[in-house]
Each structure stands twice: as structure tokens, then as C-alpha cells.
């Protein structure tokens, strides 16, 4: 039992905290969100140079062999800075699936260029009817003369506008919600038949709805065994879920600090707002929620290497809990800031929006509550 970072992990934390504090003010973020790419190519290059893009990958894949704790450290800082670069989509889902399932050629074709920051890749998986059910896939891949013909609709694919490669999940057998029969394909984002409708998201990120119409790929595009990828999808998504829990913790801590600063600055009725007990108790509720969210992020992160049921129990407990805690902290931060909390000018609203959208990412609080219950109660 140990909840402290190793010396190396502390160095990583210092480095990413410093980057966020020095290079990632709200004005900088605003400019990035408004830019053509919607994120900083220069930042991405910096991430690559600092080795952050290599962290979760094995040394054999050209990575640094870091684990969930290092990812957690990064993501918490990214949350604190409201970082918009496509780390979750490219590193934690896209490239992580390639590492988990790819053969030698596929890894060689994708991983070095991703780790060096030259190429972006994302996981085009969710579909409009699927909501949060990972196995609900209607996109089909049918055999066509030694090739696969893929058709379907992928919804709200984060980083889908700028990605060079897509990993598309498609059904090669089975019924709509079967866990068996889901295959993954590496698809060039510019391939014929791929149409991306790109848009900004309410929290300042970029995403795309991706239409696939008779997209033809060769057998070399198949990632992993045909029809047998669900367990890997689930485990990669669980790892990414723990990571966004860490992002949420960074956001929540920042919201709480901003709120305390406001309470210690603004005066009404001749005294600091922080002297009012009604507001004190609400900021204590926020504090408790932040502490418990941090605890649950540790529990999820440190359970990723445990057997499946135990992993699900921890990750879903954390995501569900943080969905609730995040809603409380976000809403209270706005409330305690009063009218200023409603403005676009202040940071609070931006943090609140990202925190709110995190609940939808990889399954919301209700989805994970039931997933937890199913794992624990049967």
C-alpha cells in the first residue's frame, strides 16, 4: 500500500506541471481552440521531444515503457491546464490499440511516426445508436475478393478531423451487440469512401462524424484477429477511462482553487465572501468531492493490471463516482463565482464545460454504475 510517486514520476510531474503553468494560460488555449487545427502543432512537437508521447509504449515499440501511473500524472496536469492536444485520441486509444493488436509491419508503419509527433491516429468506434455500449456495432466489413468493404457511421470521433489514420471497428460477424465478431481496420483518413464532417465541441476540442461508404481495404489493414478484438478494445478503453478520471481530478482541483481565491478576494456586505458559512460549507463539499475523486482515480489507475472483473469494478466505480463529483464541483464553482462564473471571460466556465463533457466520454455515471453493479452483483 503506497500512494506516493517515485522520484522519476515526480520529475515527470514537475516537468508537465511547469509546461502547463508557463505555456498554457487561458489566452493561449483560446488561440489554439480558434486556430485551424484546433490545437498546437508546436505543443505536440514539444510533447514528442519531452518523450510524453512515448510514455505508455513498450521500449520494443520505441516507447519509454511507462505505465498507468505516468499517464495519470500527465493527464492530471493536462486537466489542470485544460490542454486541447489530442493525447487521449491519438496516444491512449489509437496508438495503444496498434501496440496491443498490431503485427510487426503495422507497428512499424504507425508507432514511430506517432511517437515522434508526425502522425495522428484515432479510434473511430462509437456509433449513433450505441450510446455507451462498446459492443454495439452496426458498421459492417464484408469480404470482397480478398479485401474488406466497410460501410457505416462513426459518431463524435475525437481528433477525427486532424487524424491521418483511423482505426475503424466493424462487424465481420454476429449480431449488433455481440462481443464476438467485431474487427478493427487501419484506414487512411483520406481513403476513398471516407467522409469526415468536422466540428468543434462545446469544450473546445475537435471531433468528426465519419461516414464510411464502401471503403475498400486489403487484408493488411486488419488489426488483430478477425472478429476477436473486443477484450482488447475493452481493456484499452478502461485504461483511457482511468486517464480521463485523472484529467477530471486536475480540472476539479483547479476549479476548487479558483473558487477559494474568489471567495478570499471578493467582498459583499463589507466582508470577504469566504466569511459566509453557507459558502464555506459548499466549498468544503467541493473539497471532499475533489479528495474522493483523487482517491478513486488512484484506485482505478492502480487496478488496470488486475484481473478483468476487479479492473471493471475499480474503473467503473471511479468513472461513475467522478461523474457525480465532477458535476458537483463544476456547478458549485460557477455558483460560488456568481455572475462572473457565467462569463466566457473567466476560466471557470471553460473548466466546467470540459468537466461536464468528460462525463460523456467512455460512458457516463449511469452507464458505469450499472457496469459496476453487473460486475459485482451479477
Amino acid at each position, binding site marked *: *500500500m503506497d500512494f506516493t510517486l517515485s522520484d522519476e514520476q515526480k520529475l515527470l510531474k514537475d516537468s508537465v506541471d511547469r509546461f502547463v503553468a508557463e505555456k498554457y494560460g487561458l489566452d493561449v488555449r483560446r488561440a489554439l481552440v480558434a486556430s485551424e487545427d484546433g490545437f498546437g502543432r508546436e505543443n505536440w512537437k514539444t510533447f514528442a521531444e519531452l518523450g510524453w508521447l512515448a510514455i505508455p509504449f513498450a521500449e520494443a515499440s520505441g516507447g519509454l515503457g511507462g505505465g498507468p501511473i505516468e499517464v495519470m500524472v500527465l493527464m492530471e496536469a493536462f486537466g489542470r491546464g485544460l490542454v486541447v492536444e489530442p493525447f487521449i485520441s491519438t496516444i491512449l486509444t489509437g496508438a495503444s490499440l496498434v501496440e496491443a493488436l498490431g503485427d510487426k509491419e503495422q507497428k512499424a508503419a504507425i508507432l514511430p511516426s506517432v511517437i515522434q509527433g508526425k502522425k495522428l491516429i484515432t479510434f473511430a468506434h462509437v456509433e449513433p445508436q450505441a450510446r455507451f455500449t462498446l459492443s454495439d456495432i452496426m458498421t459492417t466489413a464484408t469480404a470482397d475478393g480478398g479485401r474488406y468493404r466497410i460501410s457505416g457511421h462513426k459518431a463524435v470521433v475525437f481528433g477525427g478531423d486532424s487524424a491521418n489514420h483511423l482505426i475503424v471497428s466493424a462487424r465481420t460477424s454476429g449480431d449488433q451487440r455481440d462481443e464476438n465478431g467485431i474487427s478493427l481496420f487501419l484506414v487512411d483518413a483520406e481513403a476513398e469512401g471516407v467522409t469526415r464532417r468536422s466540428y468543434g465541441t462545446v469544450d473546445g476540442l475537435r471531433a468528426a462524424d465519419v461516414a464510411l461508404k464502401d471503403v475498400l481495404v486489403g487484408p493488411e489493414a486488419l488489426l488483430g484477429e478477425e472478429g476477436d478484438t473486443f477484450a482488447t478494445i475493452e481493456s484499452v478503453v478502461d485504461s483511457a477511462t482511468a486517464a480521463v478520471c485523472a484529467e477530471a481530478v486536475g480540472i476539479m482541483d483547479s476549479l476548487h482553487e479558483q473558487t*477559494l481565491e474568489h*471567495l478570499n478576494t471578493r467582498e459583499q456586505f463589507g466582508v470577504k465572501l469566504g466569511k459566509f458559512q453557507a459558502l*464555506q460549507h459548499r466549498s468544503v463539499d467541493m473539497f471532499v468531492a475533489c479528495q474522493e475523486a483523487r482517491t478513486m482515480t*488512484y484506485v482505478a489507475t*492502480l*487496478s488496470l493490471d488486475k484481473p478483468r472483473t476487479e479492473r471493471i469494478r475499480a474503473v467503473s466505480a471511479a468513472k461513475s463516482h467522478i461523474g457525480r463529483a465532477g458535476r458537483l464541483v463544476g456547478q458549485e464553482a460557477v455558483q460560488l463565482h456568481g455572475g462572473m462564473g457565467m462569463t466566457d471571460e473567466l476560466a471557470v466556465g471553460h473548466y466546467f464545460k470540459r468537466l461536464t463533457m468528460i462525463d460523456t466520454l467512455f460512458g457516463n455515471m449511469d452507464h458505469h454504475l450499472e457496469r459496476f453493479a453487473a460486475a459485482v452483483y451479477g
Partner: protein
Amino acid sequence: MNLDYSESEQTFREEVQNFIRANIPSTIKAKIDARQKLANEDYIAWHKILYGRGWVAPNWPTEFGGIGWTPLQCHIFDEEIGLAGIPRVMPFGVNMVGPVIMEFGTDAQKEYYLPRILSCEDVWCQGYSEPSSGSDLASLKTRAVRDGDQYVVNGSKIWTTSAHWADLIFCLVRTDTEVKNQEGISFLLINMHDPGIDVRPIITMDGGHEVNQVFFTDVRVPVTNLVGEENKGWTYAKFLLKHERAGIAAIGSQKRQLNRLKEIARAEQSNGQALIEEPRFRDKISKAEIDLMALEYTELRAVSAANQGEVPGTEVNLLKIRGSEMQQKISELLIEAIGYYANPFVPDSFEAGWNEEPIGPDYAATLAPEYFNWRKSSIYAGSNEVQKNIISKMVLGL
């Protein structure tokens, strides 16, 4: 970072489990299983069994007869006691007055009281709250006036748990009325069998008798029973409050309650299916289980930091708030779970020796009284609102 107990900690856990299994008297075990009330003799009997094993005061320094367990070992021990449904050693001696005497008492006090606390020669109770001094404890009025080598004590203490069983009470009394509230308080040890002490039971809404009001009329206390310096009692009281709240999240017994809730929800039927399958109730149980997990590991973060030598800070206030909220939440779900059979109230069935057929399922009888009883936990040991005031000031700087 890792979540796992070390091999030696696992071995220790097994040792504790084996000890409990082998040593819990069958009469006490039967009462626990039937959820009947334990008598003072039961508490004393179990205390003496632990004393025989040297396990009464794991948190005391070895020079005073403690064991010197690590904070994690203490946590494991407490968790196993709770999981087995065994009440903790009564806290008033071991966890409250003991540490105060060790820190501030005279050598004579240490030599006399500490061994008797360990062996349970004396049963203690705590004289803090008064009818007009609850959250505002420092406003207390029970008066101790010096008369030669004695104090003459007049006044009243309230919500005094176990006063009807106790041999001794540690009391906050006012020795100076001319100064600021906090500066005129002293810490006195008083024999409950002395003349002038009157203990009147307070029956709580669950029908139980845990607490009392204690009246002092010209009670004469030797000055040698003063702990530390006169008028410095508030410092000792604050020192003690920290100890009072340690382990307050009661993870082990809460896990036991949650397991009980799940068993009942599996046994109860709703619309032809087990209650645990009914989505509305299932959500509530799952939320409670997740929240308990958050509480458990938040406590473990603090325990593990203490294990590495960090001085415990204000996390105890957070644990008090969330621990009491969880106790209340689970007790609330327990009465929800049993539907109509929350209603029958047969107090005799809580007493040992009652062996009539239960009304309704055998797990139902005590659940409503327990629910009503648990409303105390957000009030005692510093109400949750007071805890929030403390966090706000000490942690958040408001």
C-alpha cells in the same frame, strides 16, 4: 504507488482473523449473530480477552503497554474487528483519556490509571457536552472550586455514553470564570461512585439506553486528580478530540453492514424478482458501495501516509463527515430493503435470551431502531457542520 497489502500485512490480517475466530466467546458471538444488545459484562469480557493477548492498545507506545503496531496494522485490526461484527474496545479509556494522561498526566497518574485502563479494571466515560454547551463546548459551565486540596464540583454533563456503567469520568470543568471561555477550563478525573453524582438515563428514539445526563452536586475531587495544569484543559481537550475521531470511518463494520444489505436485497422480492435486480434499488446499493470504496481508500491514503511517518492532519474531519454520512446511508437502505417489516417493534427481541419466532424475516427486527439510532453519528464527536467549519478554516483558509 500500489494498492496491495504487503505479504507481512496479509499474514498479520490472517493472524487477527484466526485470533477472533478462536477467542470470541460463544455467548457474545450468538448475540452478535442475532443482533442482540451486548451488556457491559460482554464488553469487559472481550476487552479482557484482548488484554490477555496484549492487543488492547495497539496505538499506545510500548513503554505504556502498547504494541507499537504500524498505522496500517491498526487499520487492518480495526477492519477485521468490524467485519466480524465485534464492537471495538470502549474508546473512552484506551483512545481518549489514556493518551491525555500519557501526554500531560503526572507520573503517579500514569502509574495508577494506565495499567487499569489496559486491564479494564476501570470503565471510563467522557464528561464534555453540557445542556447549554454542545457545539460551543468552550462555553461549558460545570464549576470546580478549589477548597484546600480538593475541588468542589457542581453542574451537569449530558449525552454521556456508558455513564451508567462507568467507574470514572474525565471531565472538562470551569475553574476560572473571569477569563476567556477557553482559558478557564480544567481537565479533571472524577470517581463515578463518589457521593453527589447522579446518573439519569436518556432513552433515545430507538428505545435504547446508551446515553445519560450526569448531575454533580458538591462532589469533592482531590486536586491530585487534575490532569496537567489548572486552566489549561482546553488544550488537552483539543488533543483528545483528534484521538476521538481517529478510525471514525469504521470501514470494517460499514463493509459488514453493506454485505448485510446485499444479502437482504438478494433475499427480498420485488415484482417477482430479487430486490437487488430492481434497477432503482440496485442503483442505490451500487452508489453506496462505490462511495464506501471512496471512503475506504481515502482513509487508506491517510493511513498509508502516517505509515510513512507523516503527521496526521485534518483528513480526520473529512473522514468523520463522510464516515457518518455513509453509516446513515446504509442504515437508510437497510430499512428501505425490508419494506413493511420495518414496522414491527418488539424491544424484547433485542435482549439476549429472547427465543420466540421472529416477526417477519429474521434480519428485519433491529433495522428500523438501528436507522433511528444512526442519526446520532452526524451529531456526535463534533457535528458535521462543526467539522465543515474546521476544514473551512484549517484547510481551505476561509
